[in-house]
């Protein structure tokens, strides 16, 4: 499904190389986790995959179902099904959450040549999801993320993800800032989205999340590439022993 092949990327106008010939393949239906030390380049990888300005690809390629992603604008990638749950979700002052999300959903549908979703159907879906994620309904009326607590913002990322039903999901430290109950609710939501034609890449520092969302593979990102990989139990070893063995 998602194929990353020898990907190299720089930040800071090319002055700093973060990814160096990183390769990784996530087949449809699988959930992979990426762990690794602070500053290793995990968030950088998520931005390169979604096309953020300032993260320059200097080599390699990335395809989603065989289609080259790197030449696409961020919104085109989103319409193809790429979704990033941000490590630090942004506040969008003045734009109510529902307006934002309906605009996004229908922009994606238009780009794919699908029919737009009408207001009643959208509202119904949003209400049902909000209650499933135990979110206060008034949060949906407020400007997106403005004044939300850290945990509320993370929950809002999952809410958006479930509304948009993306084909490939990157979650960047979605667990940080969540209390235990929220973590379980979020994990339930994510598990519900697991399906044979959807792939997920979960970036985390903590084994705890992986108890709820059990990954098919666990990778260590260090020195700009995937330094080691293993099965779900590998996360436990990493948490116990640290990353020294994989230092660049």
């Amino acid at each position, binding site marked *: 499904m998602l194929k990353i092949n020898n990907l190299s990327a720089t930040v800071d106008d090319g002055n700093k190389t973060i990814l160096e010939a990183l390769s990784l393949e996530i087949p449809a239906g699988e959930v992979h986790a990426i762990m690794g030390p602070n500053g290793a380049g995990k968030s950088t990888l998520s931005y390169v995959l*979604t*096309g*953020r*300005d300032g993260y320059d690809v200097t080599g390699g390629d990335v395809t989603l179902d065989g289609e080259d992603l790197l030449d696409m*604008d*961020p*919104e085109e*990638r*989103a*319409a193809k099904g*790429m*979704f*990033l749950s*941000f490590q630090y*979700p*942004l*506040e*969008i*002052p*003045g*734009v109510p959450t529902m*307006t*934002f*999300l309906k*605009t*996004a*959903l229908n*922009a*994606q549908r238009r*780009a794919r040549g699908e029919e737009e979703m009408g207001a009643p159907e959208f509202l119904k879906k949003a209400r049902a999801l909000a209650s499933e994620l135990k979110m206060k309904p008034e949060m949906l009326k407020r*400007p997106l993320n403005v004044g939300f607590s850290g945990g509320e913002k993370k929950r809002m990322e999952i809410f*958006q993800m479930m509304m*948009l039903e993306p084909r490939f999901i990157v979650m960047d430290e979605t667990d940080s800032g969540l209390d235990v109950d929220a973590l379980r609710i979020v994990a339930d939501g994510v598990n519900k989205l697991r399906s044979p034609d959807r792939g997920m890449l979960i970036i985390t520092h903590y084994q705890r999340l992986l108890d709820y969302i059990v990954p098919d593979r666990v990778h260590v990102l260090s020195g700009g590439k995937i330094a080691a990989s293993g099965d779900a139990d590998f996360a436990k070893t990493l948490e116990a022993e640290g990353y020294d063995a994989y230092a660049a």
Partner: protein
Amino acid sequence: MSLDLNTLPTRRDEAWKWTDVRAAAKEQGGLSDVGLPKFTLPEGLTIMEASSDLAIASTPMSRLTSHFSGPVWTVNVPDGFSSDEPLLIEGLNRGHIRIHLILGKGASLSVIEHHASDENRFVNIDMVIDMKEGASLERAIIHDDPESCLRVATTHITAWRGAKINQYVLSFGGDLSRLETRVAVMGKEVEAALNGAYLLGAKRHVDMTSYIDLAVPDCTIRQAVKGVVTDKARGVFQGKFHVRKPAQHTDAEMRHDALMLSDNCEIRSKPELEIYADDVACAHGNTIGQLDENALFYMRQRGIPAGQARALLTEAFVADVFDDLEDETLKDSLLRKIRDWLKETK
């Protein structure tokens, strides 16, 4: 009698340093035309053509109207008047025009002005508004001139005890335009909100100037002006609160925030507080910036195309100055105009 160009202000006049009327007038015809505004009155009000001179002629452009305009279009709003219908003023499309509104004690009036001219016109409007005790005014100005129009519209408001003013300006500019509001606060407990937004493209220019003169205690002034400029447009904001010694417990706040969306656009701003009273709460803020690139990426990651994302963020940025506008139909129409402008400029 024709207008002597030397009577027009130039850049050398401090108050006009960013809006050179004389230079612009040189290329304009109809400098001594008499304008003919059109009034749609709510039931119960009448219009008179007064010939008497208005006492207030404190700016060079005001003085000109007293030489060149025809009658003073006068509306006397009786004490205690109120109506669901607004006073609509249109036909502000050419020449010199003088208008006088008198709001009696406790009267309440909503005024909607459409400032829109024909091509290649010079428009100079002087409006005097007297607000008696407890009078209340909601005033909306919608300004959209062709790129060849020179317009100056000056308003002098006198507010007596307990008067309430809510003014909303939405301007898309013109070749050169200045919308000036001067308020003399003469009675205690006056509340004034003077909000506005300007959105300018091409080589348009608008100058929003205001001068609030406070000479009595216990008044509240709120001013929030938002600007969006792109292409080679130029926005000017000049605001001054003059808080005289007796004006104790004045609570006044002035904000001007602008977005510059292109490399060649310009914003000039001069927020001023001149305070002689010692027990007041006065503040001002002025910011000029760009759209938040991080927010834009976030929106695009969710699938919203770049142009639409910019338009949404820009609309949200300007729209909040109209939040408190009571006439919901009017508010919707202002927001629609902003949206249309954003659609055309993206």
